[in-house]
């Protein structure tokens, strides 16, 4: 049975799936699945002999939960013991922003990042979930304040060689790290730019947009945050800016949402005009690339050179596949999905015009 590539797309009106063989020259679009539900997170899990597709679904009236499919989206099951805050916490589960795998040594473990910000874990391949409440019991919790997208925990990074080592990132709160499997947590924001939240807790108030670990070295972590682009060489203990080449206009601060890094060290971002504008600079959809060993970002890809696109790309809406000659994909807030097979230089628009794209993940799976 040949493996194919699937691009899982979560939108504010359900899940869509693009499928292709490994040539990635022709794509088939299936969906919508879970129509009517917003899917802030999607994840395809091939560990442990499974072929399980997850979606973090939410609705303004009906709250949030996790659904899964074991038949590539044809039918879905809602988990019966999904993420849920205890009544006495006063917290409310509004969205599931991230579904992420545990370390390779724990193939039945998954993590879910939620809004209001919190972290949940499943040890049985996603069937039951419990809160890792050491995070929401951190003394700084009263000082957590939501950003424009809500107070969301949107990134979960587990050290592949040490499952007890976890990094999470939250909008307008910051990075927290745990060395004990999520029982205790420490803020990890040294070197980042603080945003004005009006809250008197100096250890939080850092607006992380997306964080990504280097596939070759888990000590190296990158991020796009509200105040720029940063790198850590010590597992998130401290951060320094990596913004050379990003200042297009005088006084212009690098601003954007997604961040991807390939195993070979190609890093990708899609800068926006500014925090106030949050659309492509002058309508030009430019993808910037920088190799981990290079000193400067370069605008390598003019995605739609003949047309203006006054749109945005959200924090979880860019992804790489895991082929050696990797494909890079991103979706826009206006529902277009683009693919590059040459390190972000030339781009192809995939068929279909979807709703607002919230999440893009790839999945290499048997057809």
């Amino acid at each position, binding site marked *: 049975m040949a493996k194919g590539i699937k691009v899982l797309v979560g939108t504010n009106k359900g899940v869509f799936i693009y499928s292709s063989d490994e040539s990635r020259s022709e794509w088939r679009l299936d969906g919508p699945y879970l129509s*009517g*539900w917003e899917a802030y997170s999607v994840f395809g899990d091939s560990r442990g002999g499974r072929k399980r597709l997850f979606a973090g679904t939410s*609705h*303004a*009236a*009906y*709250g949030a*939960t996790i*659904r899964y499919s074991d038949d590539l989206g044809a039918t*879905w*099951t*809602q988990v*019966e013991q*999904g993420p*849920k*805050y*205890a*009544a006495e*916490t*006063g*917290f*409310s*589960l509004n969205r599931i922003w991230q579904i992420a795998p545990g370390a390779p040594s724990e193939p039945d473990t998954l993590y879910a990042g939620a809004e209001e910000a919190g972290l949940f874990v499943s040890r049985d391949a996603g069937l039951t979930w419990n809160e890792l409440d050491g995070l929401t019991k951190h003394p700084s919790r009263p000082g957590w304040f939501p950003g424009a997208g809500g107070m969301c925990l949107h990134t979960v990074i587990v050290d592949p060689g040490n499952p007890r080592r976890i990094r999470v990132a939250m909008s307008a709160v910051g990075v927290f790290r745990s060395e004990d499997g999520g029982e205790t947590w420490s803020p990890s924001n040294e070197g980042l730019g603080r945003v004005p939240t009006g809250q008197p807790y100096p250890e939080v108030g850092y607006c992380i947009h997306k964080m990504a670990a280097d596939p070759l070295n888990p000590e190296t972590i990158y991020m796009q945050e509200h105040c720029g682009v940063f790198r850590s060489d010590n597992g998130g203990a401290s951060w320094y800016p990596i913004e050379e080449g990003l200042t297009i206009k005088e006084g212009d601060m690098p601003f954007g949402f997604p961040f991807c890094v390939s195993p070979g060290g190609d890093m990708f971002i899609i800068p926006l005009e500014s925090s106030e504008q949050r659309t492509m600079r002058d309508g030009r959809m430019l993808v910037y690339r920088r190799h981990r060993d290079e000193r400067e970002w370069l605008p390598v890809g003019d995605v739609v050179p003949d047309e203006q696109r006054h749109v945005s790309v959200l924090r979880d809406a860019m992804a790489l596949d895991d082929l050696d000659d990797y494909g890079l994909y991103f979706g826009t807030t206006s529902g277009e999905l683009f693919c590059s097979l040459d390190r972000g230089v030339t781009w192809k628009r995939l068929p279909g015009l979807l709703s607002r794209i919230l999440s893009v993940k790839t999945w290499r799976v048997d057809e």
Partner: protein
Amino acid sequence: MSIEVSVPSLLADCTGGRSRFRLEADTLEDALERLLGDYPLLRHHLYRESGELRPHVLLYYNDQNIAWLADRRIPLREGDRLLVLQAVSGG
């Protein structure tokens, strides 16, 4: 006695894939308990963690909002309906 229950199609996967079905109960209060007991996933989508009904969810007994009923121990009659509605679903 039984009562006809209607839930939004978005929540039909909480009620065995059905958006309209019947429940056996003697009173409205019994019917509500039975609905949430038989379909616990429905409770998750209708109620917040604190136990309050979600702000944009309405439960109606025929044409009355249950929130304003003084007493839910109403004996059910033939033709009664229990409806789960989304408040202000228009544009």
